[in-house]
C-alpha cells in the first residue's frame, strides 16, 4: 500500500472536511440527476412505449406530434416500403378523465393501432388501456368506467400498463374510438378523415431499425425518427435537460474546486515532508500519484456515503415527486465525481513541482 493511502487510513480525521463536503455534493448530484431523469421519464412515456419502432411526423412539424399531420397516401407509401411489417396511426389530445367519486384529472388521450412491448393491442370494444400513473393515483382498476373529455364519454378500463406519463397520465384507445371522442368533445382538434398526427412503423423481422430509418428518411414530406430522437426534440425535455445539466455541470466544477482547494492547502502543510521524500529519492510524479490517490480514495468513500444518503433522502420524498434514480445516471455521477476529484488534485502540481529537496536539510 502506498504512503498516501496509509495516511488516508491512519489519519482519516485530516480528510473529514473534504470528505464531508464531497458527500454533500454527491447527494446534490444524485438528487439533481434523479429529478432530471424523473422529469424526463415523466414527460416521455408514450415515446418510450414505442422503443423498437419508428415514429413518422410531417416535415416542418419539428417532430412534435401536435404540429404534425401525415396523410393516408404517405402511410400507404410507408406500408409498401421494404422492411416495413406494419404502419399504424398515433394521435393524441390533452383531455380529462372522471374517475372515482366524481374526481376529474388531466390526462393525455392517445389513439393508436399497433401494439408494442409496453402497450397491448387497442381494445376492440371501445375500452381503454390506462397507465399506472392514473391507476395508482386515482385508484382505477380494470372494469372501472372513466368519463372522458368535456362530453364525459364513458369508457371501460380494459387494462393497465406501466407508467407512460407525458406530463399527465395517459389513456390509450383505438384510433376509431379516439376520433369519436374527439369529434364529440373537441371537433376542431380532430385531424381530417384520412389524416393522422403521426404514424408508427413496425419493422419486419430481421430489419435493423437504423437501416430502416435511413431508407424511409428519403420519402417526401415526412421525417422518420427513432423514439429517442423524438424525445430529444421535445422542447420540455430540451429545457429540462439544459437547465439541470447546467446545474449539474456547475456542481461538478464546485466538486473539482473543493478538492483542489483542500489538497492545495494540505500540500502547503506538507512542503517539508515532500522535501524529505524528494531528498530520499521521490520524484514529483511519485508525490502527485499519492495526492491523486488520496483524492480518488476520498471521492470513492464520499460516493458510497453520498449514495446511501441520497437513497434515504429520496425515500423520504412524496411519491408523486418525479425523482427516479437511474443506474446509468448514477454511474455517470460516480465517474464525474472521481474525475473531478482527480483533476482537482492536479491543481497541486505546480506547488509540488517547486518543492526543493534541499529544504529537507537546514
Amino acid at each position, binding site marked *: 500500500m502506498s*504512503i498516501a493511502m496509509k495516511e488516508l487510513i491512519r489519519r482519516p480525521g485530516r480528510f473529514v472536511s473534504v470528505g464531508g463536503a464531497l458527500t454533500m455534493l454527491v447527494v446534490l448530484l444524485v438528487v439533481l440527476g434523479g429529478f432530471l431523469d424523473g422529469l424526463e421519464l415523466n414527460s416521455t412515456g408514450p415515446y418510450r412505449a414505442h422503443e423498437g419502432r419508428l415514429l413518422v411526423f410531417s416535415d416542418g412539424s419539428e417532430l412534435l406530434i401536435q404540429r404534425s399531420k401525415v396523410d393516408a397516401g404517405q402511410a400507404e407509401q410507408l406500408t409498401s416500403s421494404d422492411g416495413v411489417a406494419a404502419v399504424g396511426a398515433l394521435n393524441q389530445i390533452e383531455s380529462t378523465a372522471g374517475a372515482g367519486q366524481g374526481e376529474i384529472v388531466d390526462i393525455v388521450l392517445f389513439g393508436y393501432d399497433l401494439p408494442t412491448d409496453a402497450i397491448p393491442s387497442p381494445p376492440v370494444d371501445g375500452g381503454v388501456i390506462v397507465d399506472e400513473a392514473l391507476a395508482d393515483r386515482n385508484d382505477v382498476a380494470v372494469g372501472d368506467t372513466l368519463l372522458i373529455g368535456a362530453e364525459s364519454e364513458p369508457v371501460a378500463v380494459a387494462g393497465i400498463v406501466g407508467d407512460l406519463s407525458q406530463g399527465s397520465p395517459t389513456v390509450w384507445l383505438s384510433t376509431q374510438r379516439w376520433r369519436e371522442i374527439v369529434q364529440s368533445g373537441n371537433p376542431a382538434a380532430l385531424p381530417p378523415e384520412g389524416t393522422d398526427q403521426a404514424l408508427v412503423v413496425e419493422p419486419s423481422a430481421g430489419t435493423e431499425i437504423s437501416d430502416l430509418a435511413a431508407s424511409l428518411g428519403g420519402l417526401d414530406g415526412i421525417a422518420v425518427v427513432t423514439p429517442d430522437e423524438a424525445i430529444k426534440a421535445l422542447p420540455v425535455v430540451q429545457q429540462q435537460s439544459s437547465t439541470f445539466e447546467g446545474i449539474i455541470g456547475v456542481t461538478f466544477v464546485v466538486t473539482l474546486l473543493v478538492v483542489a482547494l483542500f489538497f492545495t492547502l494540505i500540500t502547503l502543510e506538507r512542503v517539508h515532508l515532500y522535501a524529505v521524500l524528494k*531528498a530520499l*529519492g521521490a520524484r*514529483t510524479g*511519485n508525490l502527485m500519484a499519492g495526492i491523486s490517490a488520496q483524492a480518488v480514495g476520498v471521492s470513492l468513500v464520499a460516493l458510497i456515503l453520498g449514495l446511501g444518503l441520497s437513497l434515504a433522502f429520496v425515500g423520504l420524498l412524496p411519491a408523486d415527486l418525479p425523482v427516479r434514480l437511474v443506474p446509468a445516471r448514477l454511474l455517470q455521477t460516480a465517474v464525474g465525481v472521481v474525475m473531478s476529484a482527480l483533476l482537482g488534485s492536479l491543481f497541486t502540481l505546480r506547488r509540488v513541482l517547486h518543492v526543493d*529537496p534541499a529544504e529537507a536539510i*537546514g
Partner: protein
Amino acid sequence: MPALQLDNVRKVYRTGDQQVVALNDVSLTVQNDEMMILVGPSGSGKTTLLTVAGALLRPTSGGVRVGGADITDLDDKRLAGFRREEVGFVFQSVNLVPFLTAKENLLVVRQFGGSRIDTQARKRADQLLDELGLGGRGSSLPSQLSGGEKQRVAIGRALMNDPSLVLVDEPTSALDSALGQQVMDLLRREIKGRGVSAIVVTHDDRVLDYGDRTVRIVDGALETGAQ
C-alpha cells in the same frame, strides 16, 4: 576510486542584487570507508556542502563525483534516482514520516522510482531494526518512539538502500550527552561495519573523536590541508 570528490566547487546564492558565496572553490575527497567530520561556525557553508555532496543542489561551478559517477549536470529526475540508490541521509530533525511505523519508514525509500517492497526488502528492514536495537519497535509510530529511537530509525533508513555515501546532519543536536554518545557509537559501528563513507556535520565537539578525520569550513572555504 573515492566515494566523494568535489573539484573546485563554488555555490553562489543570489538574493536580489546581492550574491552570497556559500562554497568558495571547495575541493574535497572522501575515501571509501572513511568517516569524515565536518565542523564550522553557523553560516560557514557546512549545510550547503552537504546538499551539494548529496545531489540535492547543483553547484554553480565545479564538479561533483560520487562513487566515480559525475553528477554535476544530471537533471532533476536522474538526481532523484541517484539519491535513492547512492546516498543515505540522516537529517538533523530526523524527519521520519509521522504516519508510518518504524519499519515502514525504512521501507519508504523502496517505494519510489518503480521499486517494489518485496520479501527481501522486508527482511532487510527487520535485520536493520534488530541491529539498531529496535527489534521490537518495528510497528511503532514515530510518536511512540523516544528521541534516540527515532534517530536510530533515521540511521536505518539511510542505510536501507546500501548507499555508497551517507550524509549525517547534526546527529546529536537534539539528544542529551549519554544518548548522543550511544547514537554516535551506533552510527560509527554501522557505517564502518558496512564499509560505507560518511560525512557527519556537527557543532558538537564530543563527536569529533568518532571520525577518521575532521575538516573545518569557514566562510565557504575549507581550511588549508583539509582536502
